[in-house]
């Protein structure tokens, strides 16, 4: 691997330069503050950008313009939104548990920001390089469920409680396929450290990178991971906890003004974080897809991939309608769970079908690919058949209400 260029390391160099100008006893603290402030500023800014992208994207999908009033093409819409949410009255229900009601959005945002600590957004650009990075991510990420239940319970409202219960049921159910899908990667990489996982994928044979998404189990695992991530972040089509048409806004129905904006922020940050983890695990983190593109800065690759995934999220949201609760649970336990287990099996087979077993490079690689793909495809087809994929839809007949 070539030595990283200055453009690649510009932010790392900048941080070292800033830290170098502070007195020695304060250097650790300053280093931490710089990292945290950068994460909050960058991903907070990305949140503002995403809200306007999402509204414009959904608009275009529905053949509308989307926001186009504030600034050129509506790009300053987030500023207007911020002013609006900051100047709104902060209503707290009289019967609410005031302390918990106040804490819930703060806890949620705090927890979501914690997960960014282990995300490698570029080469040498990880806030904390933990040996148990992925484990840390999931362990901390589970805390969002607590915050959501705090919000739902303390509001003392039927809808918010229903929303919170739905959220808990959904997030616990989908956390299992989410973690199982990433286990395949952890198994293959042999490490829990996010930095090491990316480094394993930042190698090239020929021109193509060793991203796990280029393997059959990686591709299936990535798709399953992103489906589970969509459910985990309560985004459409898995937005039952805040189904507007059923329970208005779910667990944050009793929040107004800036607390509401904090929930919104947390939701988007969660989406970025889990997308970031998906990029780290399957899409090679900050590495370039082709060896001749390695001169492009690593942080550019990470954010390009992140924006692509965000766009995919928006696209899905504009396409798929909301599920019903039983469909949601059936999908999690009858489809996602078996499929992720099969992905783990396929990853294991991939691990042991080395060139020594299947033969030399060109033909052996094809055999290895086909075998692993078959291991996933066959159960997928079988599952699709049994889960009502061939259900006939007939014209409904009415026995008593003929016209």
């Amino acid at each position, binding site marked *: 691997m070539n030595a990283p260029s200055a453009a690649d390391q510009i932010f790392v160099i900048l941080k070292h330069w800033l830290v170098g100008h502070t007195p020695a006893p304060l250097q650790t603290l300053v280093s931490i503050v710089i990292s945290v402030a950068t994460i909050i500023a960058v991903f907070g800014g990305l949140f503002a950008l995403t809200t306007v992208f999402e509204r414009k994207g959904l608009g275009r*999908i529905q*053949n509308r*313009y989307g926001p186009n009033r504030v600034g050129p093409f509506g790009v300053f819409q987030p500023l207007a939104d911020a002013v609006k949410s900051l100047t709104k009255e902060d209503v707290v229900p009289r019967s609410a548990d005031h302390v918990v009601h106040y804490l819930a959005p703060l806890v949620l945002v705090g927890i979501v920001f914690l997960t960014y600590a282990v995300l490698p957004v570029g080469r040498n650009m990880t806030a904390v390089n933990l040996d148990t990075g992925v484990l840390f991510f999931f362990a901390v990420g589970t805390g969002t469920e607590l915050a959501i239940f705090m919000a739902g319970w303390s509001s003392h409202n039927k809808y918010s409680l229903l929303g919170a219960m739905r959220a808990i049921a959904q997030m616990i159910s989908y956390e299992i396929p989410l973690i199982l899908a990433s286990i395949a990667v952890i198994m293959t990489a042999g490490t829990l450290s996010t930095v090491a996982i990316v480094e394993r994928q930042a190698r090239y044979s020929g021109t193509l990178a060793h991203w796990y998404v280029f393997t059959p189990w990686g591709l299936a695992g990535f798709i399953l991971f992103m489906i589970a991530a969509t459910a985990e972040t309560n985004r459409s089509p898995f937005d039952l906890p805040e189904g507007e048409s059923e329970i208005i806004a779910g667990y944050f129905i009793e929040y107004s003004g800036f607390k509401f904006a904090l929930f919104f922020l947390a939701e988007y940050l969660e989406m970025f974080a889990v997308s970031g983890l998906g990029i780290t695990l399957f899409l090679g983190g900050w590495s370039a897809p082709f060896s001749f593109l390695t001169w492009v800065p690593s942080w550019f690759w990470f954010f390009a991939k992140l924006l692509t995934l965000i766009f995919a999220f928006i696209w899905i949201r504009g396409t798929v309608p909301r599920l019903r609760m039983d469909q949601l649970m059936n999908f999690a336990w009858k489809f996602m769970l078996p499929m992720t287990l099969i992905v783990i099996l396929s990853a294991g087979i991939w691990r042991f079908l080395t060139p020594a077993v299947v033969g030399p490079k060109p033909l052996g690689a094809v055999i290895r690919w086909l075998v692993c793909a078959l291991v996933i495809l066959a159960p997928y087809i079988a599952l699709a058949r049994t889960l009502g994929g061939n259900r006939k839809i007939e014209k409904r007949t009415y026995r008593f209400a003929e016209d």
Partner: protein
Amino acid sequence: MLGEGIIQGLVETARNFFGSYVETDRLTTVQYPEERLPLPEASRVFPFLLYDGSDPEAGLRCVACQICEKECPPRCIHIEKSKDKKPDFVGKQQFYPAVFDIDVSVCMSCQICVEVCPFDAIRMDDEFELSTTDRFGGLHWTKEQLSRPNEYYRTIHPTEAAETDERRVKELVDARAKAATAAAAAAAKAAQAPATGDTGNGATAPAQTGTVTSK
């Protein structure tokens, strides 16, 4: 196959997304303050008072009969009758409204005031941008704010205005013909008057016919 429908849906939404940048006729939204659709002729929002000629005081058709005030379902019209009288379009002496106020915020655009008005004095306007920063005085429109010339009525509701104008011309012609026959009868009576010695009617009748024909 499981997931096939979602792929089809994604293709459809992608087609819409990119299509909206290519085909402009996909975007049917009218960018309202800059672009406006022409209003249908029958559109109605809020009533106004009609006047003939150029002077809103002298030409105001309203005779303060207060029928609209009594018929108004939300009771948003307030009328105070004048003490004196002024001639209307056929020259007949009529009261006029000293005060004619309508509350914009109360009016429900039902057009009943227009239906009941026997003098074609009140009609519906199609002006819909009635927002104001003063929610008390700004929503309480006086006679001066409500008055519009007949030409304005012709521009916003041409068909209706033509029908009204035609009827009013006919009314005027009828009134003149009636006045002329009355004058003729009076003149005939006046011719006999010296014989009978009744001079009271003879003195006023020519003066009356004079005002009608001069209009």
